[in-house]
């Protein structure tokens, strides 16, 4: 076992993840199905929210992964900027659609939840708003990758965008918090803090979160492999053109 930078070699990365992928995917399916089935069929209703509390098993893990995917992209971008490992840039690219999907799931389940709880699909609540902004960041990031032809140029540009974007995402979070103060009292009717969530809700939620994490890892492996292969294909096609 050498340094972890060995996995920055595309061939090595593909070989290793090929071995890991079946296990990770199997675990992800088990945890995801387990958590969701447990949550959906075998938990009681909340005394205040009724059956809608079951949405939590999708909503919270998706929200968590939406943020974590961005963090992973940030780290991968930094690695690309500093050490210029191609796999790391491609992993960031591979993670973006997953993060965007998670953001969409959090937004949609939240909106559906909001309808019975707040009587409205959408409320400019700080949390919801910052998620909308996060979604825009994802969109811009993916669009930039798609728009630039040269792969290394695209990697450079998107990683700078990811860096600057992260700073502004944090800034927006504070801005949004500040902005909604005083104007909007009773609306944030979310459950109490995690500690106060009863154990009946808590354990299936943990399993579900684990399922989402594993799913994310499996998808990142798979999609990074795809990106590597696509890139090698492009390189080979270019080579054909030369000869």
């Amino acid at each position, binding site marked *: 076992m050498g340094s972890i930078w060995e996995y920055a070699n595309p061939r090595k990365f593909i070989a290793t993840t090929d071995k890991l992928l079946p296990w990770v995917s199997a675990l992800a399916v088990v945890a995801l199905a387990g958590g969701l089935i447990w949550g959906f069929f075998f938990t009681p209703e909340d005394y205040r929210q009724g059956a809608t509390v079951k949405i939590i098993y999708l909503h919270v893990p998706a929200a968590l992964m939406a943020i974590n995917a961005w963090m992973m992209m940030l780290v991968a971008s930094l690695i690309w900027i500093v050490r210029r490992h191609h796999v790391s840039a491609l992993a960031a690219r591979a993670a973006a659609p997953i993060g965007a999907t998670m953001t969409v799931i959090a937004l949609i389940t939240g909106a559906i939840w909001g309808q019975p709880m707040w009587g409205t699909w959408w409320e400019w609540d700080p949390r919801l708003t910052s998620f909308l902004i996060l979604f825009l960041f994802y969109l811009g990031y993916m669009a*930039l990758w798609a728009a630039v032809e040269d792969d290394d140029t695209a990697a450079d540009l998107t990683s700078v965008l990811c860096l*600057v*974007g992260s700073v502004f995402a944090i800034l927006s979070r504070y*801005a*949004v918090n*500040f902005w909604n103060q005083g104007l909007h009292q009773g609306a944030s009717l979310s459950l109490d803090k995690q500690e106060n969530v009863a154990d009946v809700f808590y354990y299936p939620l943990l399993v579900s979160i684990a399922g989402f994490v594993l799913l994310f890892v499996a998808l990142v492996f798979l999609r990074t492999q795809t990106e590597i292969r696509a890139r090698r294909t492009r390189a080979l096609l270019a080579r054909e053109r030369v000869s």
Partner: protein
Amino acid sequence: MIALLIRDLRLAVRAGGGFGLGLAFFLIVVVLVPFGVGPNSGLLSKIAPGILWVGALLACLLSLDRIFALDWEDGSLDLLATAPLPMEAIVSIKALAHWLTTGLPLVLAAPVFGLLLSLPEAGYQPLLISLLLGTPALSVIGTFGAALTVGLKRGGLLLSLLVLPLYVPTLIFGAEMARRGIEGLETTTPLMMLAGITCGAIALLPFASAAVLRVNLR
């Protein structure tokens, strides 16, 4: 450096330059909104500071792609890159020129347009201050977005999409400050935040812009 600034300003004010484009767009937004929401002046005066800020921001957004695109198309940017000017200076000058031709006129025109939207009297001063503080940040952030998308054929859409979330904090604090001013609440916090964003953006973003511009030019 000063030559570049003068040239950019001159290009902007010549026929077909971007000068007035932002202002006209600001005017368009301000004129259309009453047609859209109806002429109820109570409602208008409530949304006036917000609409003015949104209008200013859109006007800024629209003029962004001129910052580098024209120079890119006719090859001047290649030539500038080989000129004896550091890229950071080029980027900063471009942002300054953008502010002088777009941001500043917007600030000066805002009171007049405030009239059209029946902005309450107490709103003028905080609105002006917030615009004066906030528009430089819009120009600098926008220059970064323009530098990111310069090589891309008609990157206009992408540019707006990339810059939009970056503009959110500035907009929130700016409009909030104007609104608070109208309601007589304290405005120090948003003022400080706005000033902080602007200073931070001016101090740091030119380096990021220069870096991505260098990448895009190769």
